[in-house]
């Protein structure tokens, strides 16, 4: 459903350009969850931004490649059509639930914005959609309490649930999650990820899950791509990767996961 072909992205540093992503190819099948693992500066977030076409023209550009989504090349799509896709067929869940919500708007208003950003003519039929209340119930929040609340009245975990609810409002076909739980502690992280991947299965949506934690990615996704310095160094089935990782970098990432001393 999503096919990235030979994607390259570069950022501007003064008069020079710095490659951030080099020749990356990756596919996400219908309803498949794919993990993208890498450390700070590996270019993994840039891939997500490129899919959403959110790289600012003043900061960098996509220098090569195609991003095919449902048969269309997103990179060749006119801006208005791309805006139609964003939030409706492709939804993104950001890293920091403390800055991704507008502090002066009630949750109801923020969620309604996604619904009212209705295109004049809908080029594709709607699959399904939820009211904000239904979406909040799906992420196990009490709509009567949350809808009229302001972000500062919610905990980090609750905000991340609100962001997930907002992302699924339009019944997206593809979810992009960029380190959705790094700002949260382990207990909340588990709750949120369990919920996110359950919803992904129910929606039969594709998922690109981006994280620096290989163990976490392997726990939730079927296929994993490991990125280093802008390039994918290894791709494989999660369980296989653990048994015999080929690339030294993947082996190093694996070795860095704390193992229990007890069986």
């Amino acid at each position, binding site marked *: 459903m999503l096919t990235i072909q030979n994607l390259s992205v570069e950022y501007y540093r003064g008069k020079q350009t710095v490659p951030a992503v080099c020749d990356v190819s990756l596919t996400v099948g219908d309803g498949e969850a794919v993990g993208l693992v890498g450390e700070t500066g590996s270019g993994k977030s840039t891939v997500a931004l490129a899919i959403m076409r959110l790289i600012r023209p003043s900061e960098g550009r996509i220098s090569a490649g195609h991003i095919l989504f449902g048969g269309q090349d997103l990179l060749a799509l006119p801006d208005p059509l791309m805006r139609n896709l964003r939030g409706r067929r492709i939804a993104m869940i950001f890293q920091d639930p403390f800055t991704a919500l507008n502090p002066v708007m009630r949750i109801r208003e923020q969620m309604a914005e996604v619904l009212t950003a209705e295109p004049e003519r809908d080029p594709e039929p709607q699959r399904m959609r939820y009211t904000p209340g239904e979406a909040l119930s799906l992420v196990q929040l009490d709509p009567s309490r949350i809808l009229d609340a302001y972000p500062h009245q919610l905990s980090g975990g609750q905000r991340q649930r609100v962001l997930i609810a907002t992302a699924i409002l339009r019944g997206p076909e593809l979810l992009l999650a960029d380190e959705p739980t790094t700002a949260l502690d382990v207990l909340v992280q588990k709750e949120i990820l369990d919920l996110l991947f359950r919803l992904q299965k129910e929606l039969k949506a594709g998922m690109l899950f981006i994280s620096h934690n290989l*163990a976490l990615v392997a726990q939730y996704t079927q296929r994993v791509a490991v990125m280093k310095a802008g390039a994918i160094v290894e791709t494989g089935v999660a369980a296989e990767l653990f048994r015999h990782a080929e690339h030294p970098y993947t082996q190093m*990432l694996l070795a860095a996961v704390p*193992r229990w*001393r007890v069986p």
Partner: protein
Amino acid sequence: MEAQHLAKSFAIEGGLLKRTLGYVHAVQDVSFSIAPGETMAIVGGSGCGKTTIAKMVASLLSPNQGRLLWEGVPLTTLSRVERARHIQMIFQDPFASLNPKLSVGVQLGEALRIATGVVDVRKRAAELLESVGIEPDALVHYPFQFSGGQRQRIAIARALAPGPALLIADEPLSALDVSVQAQILDLFTRLKKSLGLTILFITHDLVVASLQADRVIVLQDGRIVEEGPADETLRHPQHLYTRALLDAVPSVPV
């Protein structure tokens, strides 16, 4: 080091007149002691009060109740410099814990000058940097010129400068990349052995805690819910909360 019945609450202020609406009890009746050379971990989710305890032990916050004893003497009776020689702390975010406007040399040298009688400050500072795996020419550089992992090493060197007996490490890994985390953990293990450090390790990751520590305290809502040897706690967690913490840590299937 001994902590007796520590309690700390923060006032919630509200309205135009800043009236006190209520109190958040961050830490309630927590007691523990750390033996010399021991590593103790305090584990819990966010908001459980673990950082508040760390700050109280470091004298950055004063407890509402209870007291902290250093070899039987209340910490509050010690001078600023004496406390610096006994207890140092490493913070979570190495981007926030080094002063951006002062060179590494100034920050290390100052810690040395205040707490130790070292004559050749420059030489000692270079030695400290080497002991944490940083080139000595870093002394003339500024924090922005280093990566997160390097900064955390420099922060560790600064904390070691006064020659403390107790090192508090408040989530020293959570802001770092996975591969860097492993290196910093190794560094801790090495320093602990070579310097005979006593360490109070604060983390939300029970597995890391158990690998690093001799003893573990599990904290929930400001109270101790479980306490015991690290191996034992990991193998046979007694409390429900401890089990939940353990389950939540992503691990490699063995």
